[in-house]
């Protein structure tokens, strides 16, 4: 049996159409089925009744309340213990969410040339500034770090691929990378918060998981009033009142990232 070219082309065309059409029908049906299964459940998602909500979460650091080493330690420890932050014991691998830093690493850059010597000697409590225009979010290629409606710059550890662009983009050094498996280095694990895996970047999240349960951030609770947290968009909130009545400064405002962490200086005799 022999076929001519015309017949061959016709048959080939028919077989191709059959194959393609068939696969479309199969995948189409399967997609429908999954979709139907997903939507058949008229379920919904909501928030807890206790959840604290705000339009723009912000923090005020009252420098007058951070006098002794103990004040810093207590605040840092409260964060470390609930967020499973490992201690690798060396500064290269260090993971920091909230920490104590000196003037040079905190406010240098846009300062007046002559500040009181006292001010330059002070240690400062620093953390992620949850900027209004976060450069880390722009740098992230996977959307693993993103800005929430309430102004918090959050991390989705599931999506982080460990490219560390965000670390390069953050002008505050607020992000840390897990170069090693953190689990063996966690002093006492909190099972209610996930640990991280090697190759994931992490940072302060303003305790979104606590806000969702109606609790203030852990550092705020531990700070004895040194850290004040609230809604910057609410004129009646404590942070807003403090910021509008007292003199506050923010870190590296010249970069235009609009940090949400304000430092209350010039309060009392200290700072």
């Amino acid at each position, binding site marked *: 049996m022999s076929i001519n070219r015309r017949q061959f082309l016709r048959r080939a065309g028919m077989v191709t159409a059959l194959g393609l059409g068939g696969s479309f029908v199969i995948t189409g049906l399967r997609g429908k089925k999954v979709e139907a*299964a997903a939507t058949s459940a008229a379920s919904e*998602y*909501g928030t807890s009744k206790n959840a604290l909500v705000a339009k723009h979460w912000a923090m005020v650091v009252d420098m007058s309340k951070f006098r002794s080493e103990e004040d810093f330690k207590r605040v840092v420890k409260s964060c470390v213990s609930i967020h499973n932050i490992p201690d690798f014991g060396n500064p290269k691998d260090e993971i920091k969410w909230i920490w104590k830093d000196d003037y040079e690493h905190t406010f240098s850059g846009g300062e007046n040339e002559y500040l009181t010597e006292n001010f330059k000697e002070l240690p400062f409590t620093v953390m992620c500034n949850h900027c209004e225009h976060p450069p880390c979010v722009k740098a992230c290629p996977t959307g693993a770090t993103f800005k*929430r409606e309430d102004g918090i710059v959050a991390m989705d*550890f599931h999506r982080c691929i460990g490219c560390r662009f965000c670390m390069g983009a953050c002008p505050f050094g607020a992000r840390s990378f897990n170069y090693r498996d953190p689990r063996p280095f966690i002093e006492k694990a909190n*099972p209610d918060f*996930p640990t991280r895996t090697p190759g994931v970047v992490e940072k302060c999240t303003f305790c979104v998981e606590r806000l969702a349960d109606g609790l203030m951030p852990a550092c705020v609770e531990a700070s004895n009033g040194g850290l004040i947290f609230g809604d910057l968009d609410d004129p009646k909130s404590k942070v807003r009142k403090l910021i509008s009545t007292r003199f506050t400064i923010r870190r590296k405002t010249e970069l235009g990232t609009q940090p949400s962490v304000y430092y209350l200086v010039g309060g009392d005799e200290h700072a």
Partner: protein
Amino acid sequence: MYKGGKIIASLIIFVAFLTFPFFSNMGKANAGPEALAATVSQLAGKQCVEPASYMRTNHMQLLNQWRNADVRDGKTVYVNTQGKSFDISLQSCVECHSTQATATTTGVSNPVLNTSSDQFCVSCHTYASVKPTCWSCHAGPEGATK
């Protein structure tokens, strides 16, 4: 056939070699996770997030939706088709779906990959050869306090 005996003998050896895995595993077929109920802590008045039939086919999609809702949209409560609310957390799952036999998994190897475990997730996932990595970060059964 030229050298027919050798050819046929080689063919037989070849086919035997090729089908060796099938014969060696014959009768030892993985029976599948049958004792699933035994790995569920029966708590009085507890019902699953969604009906078991739905969960069996769709739990992976539901978990992904939960993850996105909680992490990205800040929605921490799931209201199911019966109108019952659940905290969006893996602990809402392992509260029931575990033998409660393992110690906290933080700092221990991944229990989902640990095939000797008789935990709920493991028994099915081992059978289906699925290796989710939930427990490399999240605390597994018995880890939770809430």
